[in-house]
């Protein structure tokens, strides 16, 4: 099995992947690039802790091979904001206690960031009354749209409150 290579744009920087094609995007981010904000929970696409944004879309980085992402734009939690310069969604998670242990939080925040764009684009969800209509941004919609991210601490209601605050402040600006 030959070593293979790809170039990925990770948080705006060109990064070389070189190695075993079995390596997932998640392991490449964490082990090779030391971007350990992205978390490995179940490693089977069931928990959402590994959620990153690829070309604007949220995906489970555990169920994707690094080699398949040549040329792709990857945004991880490190690309959303920094401790010195938090993004609005990160500030909202802090102010609403949107976490306890924090392990699922990077995935929650990456997921929520892309989710708000999906909602703004009018994508329906499983709880949208009539799928042809523009969905209303209700808590029910937000909960359904965040169902790919599990939180073992059960901070769900505060996560929804944090997302709602960001949604409302964006509407106001």
């Amino acid at each position, binding site marked *: *099995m*030959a070593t*293979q290579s790809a170039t990925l744009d990770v948080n705006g920087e060109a990064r070389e992947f070189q190695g*075993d*094609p*079995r390596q*997932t995007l998640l392991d490449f981010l964490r082990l090779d690039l030391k971007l350990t904000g992205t978390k490995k929970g179940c*490693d*089977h*696409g069931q928990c*959402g802790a590994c*959620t990153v944004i690829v070309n604007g*879309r*949220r*995906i*489970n980085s555990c*169920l*994707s*091979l690094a*080699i*398949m992402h*040549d040329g792709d734009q990857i945004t991880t939690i490190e690309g959303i904001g920094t401790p010195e310069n938090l993004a609005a969604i990160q500030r909202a998670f802090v102010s609403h206690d949107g976490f306890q242990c924090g392990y699922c939080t990077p995935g929650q925040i990456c*997921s929520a960031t892309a*989710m708000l764009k*999906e909602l703004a*684009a*009018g*994508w*329906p*969800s*499983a709880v*949208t009354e*009539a*799928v*042809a209509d523009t969905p209303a941004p209700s808590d029910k919609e937000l*909960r*359904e*749209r965040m*169902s*790919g*991210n599990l939180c073992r601490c059960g901070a769900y209601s505060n996560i929804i409150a944090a997302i709602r605050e960001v949604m409302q402040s964006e509407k106001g600006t």
Partner: protein
Amino acid sequence: MRPFDYRRVADLQPVDQPGDRLIAGGTNLLDLMKLEVEAPRRLLDISRAGHDRITAHEGGLRIGALVTNADCAADPRIRADYPLLAKAILAGASPQLRNKATTGGNLCQRTRCQYFMATDTRCNKRQPGSGCDALQGVNRNHAILGTSETCIATYPGDMAVALTALDATVEVLGQDGTRLIPVAEFHRLPGDDPARDNVLRDDEVITAVTLPEPAAGRQSYRKIRDRSSYAFALVSVAAVIELREGRIARVALAFGGLAHKPWRDPQTEAILTGRPPSPALFDQAADALLAKAKGRGGNDFKIALARRALAAVLTEATEE
């Protein structure tokens, strides 16, 4: 995960060597490769091989095999004319998975039978001839219709259940050209060869799914599961029902979670067609649907659940 070679391919071509597997979204295949249920020698990456558009086609639509589930469910034409399909897709998996999962890959997804997914158990689908631990095991999620003594696994998807009720067609490319397979005939029953999930040959690849002209009537998808989101169906019902002058003029019903394939039963539809809707009629339809249903202990409840799900869908779809 077993080692493999990787190559990106520019065109959607059938595989030409044993041990080759196509990969697009990879959400099911990579999961199974981690479990070593799947161990391809080479992965051919078709994720950038085009076929990712939805286009007008003979009064209906043609959905390219590499259209993601997310894009399909968000498409205004699908939402307006085939809401059943959008609803079924949105009832499945999570937004992250739907952003990767493709139309062709979704059709080919494998059962989530826990014995199939665990290599230290016996499974005729994973290892033909080894036996089936589900028959006497934990079989709460398993099939009640069309099973055999070698396999009681279910087809796990939602999208294909909707496509079956919508009379969609799978377009397949092989060495000898294109062939068209009705979605209802794409998946197969286990019989004595449960290793094969569907009728796709090893040297064929799905290129598209086509939808006929939109049908008149109401469309609905009801999915019953253990939690309200992000879980596989215990029972699901896809329905297209047209009422005319107080009678059911046309009905198409497909069921998920009950069998090794999306289940469609012509006799159940015949009982309903031409008759005014009533609870007694719905009961009669359920009798026909479930006449040969067989529980294996853990999944006995599905027989009653399917009956109630059918009644609920028919009641809702025939309300004035």
